[in-house]
């Protein structure tokens, strides 16, 4: 690996980077990773959201915890460092259902609901989704490379996918 800076994004967290930084989040489970990229300025952003909808939860101070407010805050931060909203493109990963019991309870199908919420807000903001690797039942580690907008998705026993 080269000496490019790796910027880690934890659960309920978000961050941005200019080329050549790499934004990464490790062990994405039922949370959804939403990555945004401005291909002209080569600015990337990643938010690791736990829950679909901030309006459904009383305690919603932490914006990065939610798909809706996290995405909006991420866009704000990207614009501050020079990105243009109309140029942004999105890629999604995560939203897995880690354990079978999550099926039985509608409240627990959180991974799927996170992905649906991400698609909804991106559509409202007219940000095209170029690729996704979502759902199923396994964890993912992702890396957004700001030099070219490639999103690497790694899963145990499944190798590395480039989307």
């Amino acid at each position, binding site marked *: 690996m080269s000496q490019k800076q790796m910027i880690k994004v934890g659960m309920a967290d978000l961050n941005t980077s200019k080329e050549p930084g790499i934004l990464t989040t*490790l*062990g994405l489970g039922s*949370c959804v990773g939403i990555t945004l990229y401005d291909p002209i300025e080569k600015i990337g952003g990643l938010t690791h959201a736990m829950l679909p909808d901030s309006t459904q939860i009383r305690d919603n101070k932490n914006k990065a915890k939610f798909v809706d407010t996290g995405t909006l805050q991420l866009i704000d931060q990207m614009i501050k460092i020079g990105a243009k909203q109309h140029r942004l493109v999105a890629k999604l990963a995560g939203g897995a259902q880690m354990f079978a*019991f999550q099926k039985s309870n509608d409240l627990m199908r959180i991974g799927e609901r996170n992905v649906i919420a991400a698609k909804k807000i991106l559509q409202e903001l007219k940000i095209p989704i170029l690729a996704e690797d979502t759902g199923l039942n*396994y964890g993912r*580690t992702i890396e957004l490379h700001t030099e070219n907008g490639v999103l690497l998705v790694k899963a145990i026993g499944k190798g590395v996918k480039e989307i």
Partner: protein
Amino acid sequence: MSEIHVDHLNTFHLDILREIGNIGSGNATTALAKLINKKVDMGVPKVNILEFKDVADILGGADTEVIGIVFDLSGDITGMMMFVLDQRSARILVNLLMGREIHEDEVFTDIDLSALQEIGNILAGSYLSSLAGLTHLKIAPSIPYMAQDMAGAILSVPAIEFGKVGDKALFIETEFIEGKDQVSGYFILIPEMKSFHKILEALGVSK
């Protein structure tokens, strides 16, 4: 007594949670020792109250591959119980249980996986029954659910539950170690805060 929030626990609350971890994992450790007929040591239970961005690190890094056996808890005490092992420990444990030679690099067969689930079942059962006995509260664990995956991905499931009510997650974590073959892992109790309130009441301790 008003609802206790994970962000505002005092040292007295933490002591009680640690003691719960102590009693539960003490019993589970004894059960494990009997099961494999070896001496098993237990660490001091830790009550971890973590920001979500730090949650994934408690099992040695978010992308560490682990085996997690998880129980959804219902009854008076709700939340989750987890039994987590690294890959190597899980293999050794299965081999010890099956009375086989220890090979560290085999792939798990279906029977191995089902044996691991059953170990999880027995250990979680002894952890929870001691807790239920102490508090006279009803705790009903689900069947075991297993995942072989990255620690962060497994821990995201309980973390999300905490995310619905606050900005921190609480894990009562106890490490156990079988010295000779170096099997180590964790018992993790993840009570919902509303159950904690019931536990305090049941133990006859007011705030």
